[in-house]
C-alpha cells in the first residue's frame, strides 16, 4: 500500500458516495460507512477489552451491564468490531424515521427478537443492553448462540473505557424454564464480571 493510495482513500470513498457506487445490504448496513464511523468512535474513546481471546468463533450475543443513551453499548460494539473478524451490530436503534436509517447504515439493529435473530443468522455478533435481556435470551435459544455478559466501566471525564467479558452462557434446551434459567445464569455471571471489572478499574 503506497502513501498515495492511503492519502487518496478518503477521496475515492467520497467519490463512491456521490456516484452511488457504495453497497448496502437488506438490513440497511453499509460496511464502508460503518468502518468510517468506527474509526471516528475510536478517536472519541479508547477502549481496552479483557477476555476477547476466550470468545468462541462465530456469532455471539454480548449483554452489556449498563448503557447511558446507548453510549456503553456502542463503545463495546466498536471495541469488539476490532477484535472479531465477523461483523458486530449494536442493538440500540432509535425508531425515528429521520435517524433510524442512518443508524442502520453504521450497524445498529432494533432490540427485537426478529431483528436480532436475522442478524445472528447472517453470521454477525450482536451487542445488547441488559434491559433487553429477554430479547437476547429468546434469540440465543432460537439461534443456539451463546450469551456473553460484559461489564463496561467508563467515566464522564475520562477518555479511557474498559470492557470485561464474562463466561459464555448457552442452553441446549428450549421452553420457558430454559429461558428463565439462562436469564438467571447471565445475571449471576454479569454481577461476578462487574465486580471484577470494578476492581480492575479502581487499580487503573
Amino acid at each position, binding site marked *: 500500500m503506497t502513501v498515495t493510495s492511503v492519502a487518496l482513500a478518503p477521496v475515492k470513498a467520497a467519490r463512491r458516495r456521490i456516484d452511488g457506487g457504495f453497497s*448496502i445490504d437488506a438490513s440497511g448496513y453499509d460496511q464502508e460507512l460503518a468502518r468510517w464511523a468506527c474509526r471516528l468512535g475510536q478517536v472519541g474513546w479508547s477502549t481496552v477489552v479483557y477476555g476477547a481471546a476466550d470468545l468462541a468463533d462465530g456469532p455471539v450475543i454480548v449483554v452489556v451491564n449498563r448503557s447511558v443513551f446507548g453510549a456503553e453499548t456502542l463503545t463495546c460494539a466498536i471495541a469488539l468490531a476490532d477484535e472479531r473478524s465477523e461483523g458486530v451490530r449494536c442493538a440500540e436503534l432509535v425508531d425515528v424515521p429521520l435517524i433510524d436509517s442512518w443508524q442502520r447504515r453504521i450497524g445498529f439493529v432494533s432490540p427485537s427478537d426478529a431483528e436480532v435473530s436475522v442478524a445472528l443468522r447472517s453470521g454477525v455478533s450482536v451487542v445488547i443492553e441488559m434491559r433487553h435481556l429477554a430479547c437476547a435470551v429468546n434469540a440465543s435459544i432460537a439461534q443456539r448462540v451463546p450469551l456473553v455478559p460484559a461489564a463496561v466501566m467508563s467515566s464522564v471525564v475520562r477518555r479511557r473505557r474498559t470492557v470485561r467479558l464474562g463466561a459464555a452462557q448457552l442452553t441446549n434446551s428450549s421452553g420457558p424454564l430454559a429461558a428463565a434459567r439462562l436469564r438467571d445464569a447471565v445475571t449471576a455471571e454479569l454481577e461476578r464480571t462487574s465486580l471484577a471489572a470494578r476492581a480492575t478499574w479502581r487499580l487503573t
Partner: protein
Amino acid sequence: MACGWSTSETVAYKPAVSRPVTTIAWYLARVVDSPGCVRRQLGRSRTRQEIACVKRIGRWVRTVGAMRLWVTGMGGELGTRVVQLLEEAHPRAEIMGTDIDPPRRRLRRAQFLRIHPDERERLVTAIVGFDPQVMVHLGIYEPGARASDASAHRRNEVGSAAVLGAALECPSLEHVVVRSGIEVYGRRRGSPQQPSVDCPLDPTCQFGRDQLAIEQLAEHVGRERAISVTRLRFAPLVGPHFPSPLGRVLRLAAVPFHVGDPAFSLVHTEDACRSVVGAVEQRFDGALNVVANGATTAFQAARLGNRLALPAVGIGLRAAGGLAGLAGAPVPAHLIELLRRGRCALPSDLVAALGITLEHDTTDVVKALYEWATVVPITVGVRAA
C-alpha cells in the same frame, strides 16, 4: 369439458403384490387421478427410493400432462411473460386468461379474453366455463402504475372477488397462485426491517391492505376447496418496460429522496415471472417472499442512473411527489411510504419451495432500469425509379 387427468379405471386398481414395478404403476395411476391422494399415501409402507421415484414420475406427469391454466392479468408485462414461459414449459397445457388490455407480446397458443374487472358476471361465466385446474391470479393493480389510486383499489376489490369467487365454483381446481407484495407487512414504527413470512401482517398503505384482502380471499378458497394456494409476496417490481410508479420516479431527471434515505429491495420482472411458473409447477402451499438479494436507496439509485438527487423531508417529499406527478410520474401513498421508511423483507428459500434461484440482485435491477436500448435511426431506402 373433459378433465385431462382423471380416468375411472385407474382409480379402482390396487396392487395385489408388492413388486416395485406394480407399486409404481399404481402410484402413477393415482398421480394421474389425484396428486393429493398420493401425498397422503406416501410414507406409509414404501421405501425411500420408491417414494422418490414416484414423486419424480408424478412431477413428470404433471409437467407434460394437459392441464388447464387460467391467468388473470394476462395483458400486463408480468402476465404476458408468465404465459409465454408456461407455453414453453407445458406444450400440452390449455391456457386462457383475461385483462383490461390485450397481451403485450405474442402468445402462440393461449386464448385471451378482454374482460374488465368490473364485468363480474362475464368474468365468472368465462372462468367457470373453462373450469381450470390451476388458477394464476396476477390481476393486481398497483396504484400509479396503470390506474389511479381509487381506480386501482376498486379494480383490486371487485376483480379479485369475482375471480376468486368463481374459483370456488370450479370443480377441477387444484391449485391457486396469487400475486401479493411485501407491502402487506407494513412499515409501522417498531416493525422489523426484514420481515419473514411468519411476521404478523399489518399493512400501513391502501395497496398493502388490498393485497392482504386478496391473500385472505385466496386462503379462504384454499380452505373451502382443500387445495393448495401459493401467495407470492413480491418486493417492488421494477424493470425497463414494466409500468411501475417507482421506476418512473427513478427515471425522472431529478429524483426526490427522503433525507433519511432508507434502504429498499426490489425484484426483477423476469425473476418474478420464473417464480410464478415455479409456483404453478411445484404447487407450494403457503406464502413466500420473492425478494432480490441486497438493497438500494433512492439516492443511490438516482446516482447510478446519473440523475440529480433532490433531498426532501416531511411535507417537502409530498410536494416533490406532486411535482413528479405533473411530470408524468405519480407518487402514490405506498411509494411515499417506501421513500420515507424503506421496504425490505427476508427472502424465502425459493430453491426448496419452487426450485428456482433469483438471478438478479437489487443493484442489477436498478442498473437494468436505466439500460435503454440505443435508438438506431433506420434509413429508408430510396425506391429505384
